[in-house]
């Protein structure tokens, strides 16, 4: 029954339906949890496309339950519309990889904290022009010129997770990822 010609790691560009139907879950060993985490690192936040769901720290659990893959995800902000899009993106990516039984569950506890953004994630944020969250409650430096002569324009910004600041040295406005 096992067809050795089926590629264990299909290319993401292949259509979803083909693989889901051809790669029956019993026909090949199921991917390891480590492998799933590696794949999840390719799913990006739709609002901050340099950050993966792993960088954001919103993946709380990944487990096999028989042939079903269960993933627990926690929202950054309860009303953030990106959470719905992220859930769909995760499911789509996994289906492309041949996993058909997927349950993405939302966990509210423990509540997400901006401390869970990984250090790689923080570096990517700054390189992208968004100042990473700081426990002090304000950005440490301008993500462009690194000046610390900063001015808060608004406590809120273009998405629920950001506030708007301006650098008084280079005069550029920039987003600051709020501390939550």
């Amino acid at each position: 029954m096992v067809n050795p010609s089926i590629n264990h790691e299909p290319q993401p560009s292949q259509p979803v339906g083909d693989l889901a139907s051809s790669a029956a879950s019993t026909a090949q060993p199921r991917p390891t949890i480590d492998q799933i985490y590696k794949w999840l690192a390719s799913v990006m936040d739709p609002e901050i496309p340099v950050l993966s769901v792993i960088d954001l720290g919103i993946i709380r659990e990944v487990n096999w339950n028989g042939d079903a893959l269960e993933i627990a995800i926690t929202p950054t902000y309860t009303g953030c519309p990106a959470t719905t899009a992220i859930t769909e993106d995760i499911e789509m990516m996994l289906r492309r990889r041949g996993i058909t039984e997927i349950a993405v569950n939302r966990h509210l506890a423990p509540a997400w904290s901006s401390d869970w953004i990984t250090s790689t994630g923080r570096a990517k944020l700054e390189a992208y022009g968004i100042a990473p969250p700081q426990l002090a409650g304000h950005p440490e430096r301008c993500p462009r010129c690194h000046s610390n002569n900063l001015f808060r324009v608004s406590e809120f910004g273009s998405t629920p997770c950001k506030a708007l600041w301006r650098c008084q040295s280079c005069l550029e406005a920039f987003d600051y990822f709020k501390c939550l």
Partner: protein
Amino acid sequence: MDYQSAYFEFLCRLGDNALILGHRISEWCGHGPTLEEDIALANIALDLIGEATVWLELAAGVENKRRTANDLAMLRDAWEFRNVLLVEQPNGDFGQTIMRQYLFDAWHVLVLTALAESRELPVAAAAAKIKKEAQYHLLRSRNTVIGLGDGTPESHRRMQAALDWSYPYVGELFERDEIDHTVEQKGVVNQSANLWDHYYEEISSTLQRATLQIPAAPHSHSGGKNGQQHSEHLGHILTQLQWLQRAYPGAQW
């Protein structure tokens, strides 16, 4: 009253407060006095609507009648809503909106703090999550009330008028009835901490810094939380909020 019904009503109250206030302040979208305030109000509206989803999902699960959070939000009529009157009141000017927000936020954070200790674990988890967002709202509404109250003669006058207008709606936030007693007995919320004392401490200190006078408040409006007498404004909100689902039942985004 049996526990399941009381618990359902209790969750609807939390959800409806967030939903109606969230909708109210979303009305500012595109009309804020400055771009930053416009964005801030829209963001707070989004947080509140996210909160409403959480409570109404829990309520739908407790009710167990195959209704979803969307059904509760979009298909109940005015008399089935359980929000306090404060949140359904018109926005008025920006000062009135911010004063209403502050009076709500100060209460909201206290309630969520108490609920984070709930014996109903889904309630505790939701409250701990939402509290983090509500604290940020309070930080901003408190500072804005102080800035405008202790601002120009015109902003001061408007903020005092906003307080005089809003204050008679505060009492309802602290009313307790059979539903509250029933859920308290089960440890959904611990009422040993006196919320009013903490609330009054918070608002009197802020309003003093804002150079505003708390009105004597000889009367207190109520009837929203128990659904017995909503103001006329709720029906008007629902005509907007629910229009799409009423006109095109089952429509999906």
